[in-house]
């Protein structure tokens, strides 16, 4: 599972233990970060803060938005509740990504609590242990299991007759026939790069 972790570089030293706790929880669940920015950012801040000013921020923003597009879920540490976090949450919602927003403060007095969207989970935490537990629960709830999934769909009479005939001819059940057809289609797509 690919996860994009969003926070702010403001007050990074203060929030770094919590960000590391999130990363630890991700790894515990076998997930990986879409871009590992925490340690490099911390290094830059520790050595020369002015480097931040000379960064190519166009690229930083582009990379963050691209990471949101390709990840399965987004985790936002939003204690300092900044512009960039709001911007990226809106982007994640546009791409229909499940979003966990965590903060060491309450959301009750903030407008984010009015964001009634099934994709958004808001959780307050106090300790690193609590935070790790929240992240693990969120990831488990949003993991598409590796076991097979049930898929229901409507078919018309013609498709039904075709599947019935194929089933009788081949001795396979209808589901197997549909799966075979889809798998052939996927293999074709791979071969021709469609």
């Amino acid at each position: 599972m690919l996860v994009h972790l969003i926070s702010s570089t403001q007050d990074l030293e203060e929030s770094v233990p919590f960000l590391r706790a999130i990363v630890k929880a991700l790894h515990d669940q076998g997930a990986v970060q879409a871009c590992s920015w925490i340690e490099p950012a911390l290094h830059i801040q520790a050595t020369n803060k002015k480097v931040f000013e000379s960064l190519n921020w166009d690229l930083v923003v582009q990379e963050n938005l691209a990471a949101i597009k390709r990840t399965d879920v987004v985790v936002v540490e939003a204690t300092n509740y900044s512009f960039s976090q709001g911007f990226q949450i809106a982007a994640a919602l546009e791409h229909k990504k499940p979003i966990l927003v965590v903060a060491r403060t309450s959301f009750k007095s903030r407008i984010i609590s009015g964001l009634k969207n099934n994709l958004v989970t808001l959780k307050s935490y106090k300790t690193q242990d609590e935070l790790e537990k929240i992240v693990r629960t969120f990831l488990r709830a949003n993991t598409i299991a590796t076991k097979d999934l049930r898929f229901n769909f409507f078919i018309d009479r013609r498709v039904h007759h075709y599947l019935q005939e194929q089933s009788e001819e081949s001795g396979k059940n209808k589901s197997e026939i549909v799966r075979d057809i889809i798998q052939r289609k996927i293999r074709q797509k791979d071969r021709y790069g469609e």
Partner: protein
Amino acid sequence: MASNQLRIHISGSGMHLNEDMPYIQTIVRAVYENKGSVTRYWFEAIRTRHELGISDEEADWGVIHQENDDVITQSDLVIVETTRDYFYQGYQAYVAAQRKKPTLVVTRSPIKGRFISGITSKYITLKTYQTEDELAAIVTKFIKANTIPTKDLRFNFIIDRQIYRYLREKSYETGRNKSEIIREILKRKISSGSI
């Protein structure tokens, strides 16, 4: 009822309203001086809430968010004051650009070395200011650059044979040209409130 006036949504933080109010009012003044109208007076709602002693925790944020979301859709332009670098201004700036609304983001804070300086959407204009005069000039310039002129606009579109035959017949019957017939149909539709 559709009107010719430019509808503008202003987004700003209510967290330091007393301090920020002169700048919000500057934006409001510039909007009206440029023949626009403000779509939502959220700052007045916050003042009233505070006067009535309603705490932020008691506010119905679901309704407030929904109202903000709706006015972004209804607005022609969006102006985001983000000196406080708060979450919701970032959220609204993205949503406005996503809905193809020309969006002006203004701040008194330095932007160098910050995420905001890397936003390159063609719908977002980012400007820093220090004084109310400077802010008024920025807002005026933005509104002027995004005002659809009041004179008529050329509009081309593809029609199929059926529509073409209908317009030709109507034109023949009424003595009006086809463009007039379409304009009348649209105006009737607008007056009936179904748009």
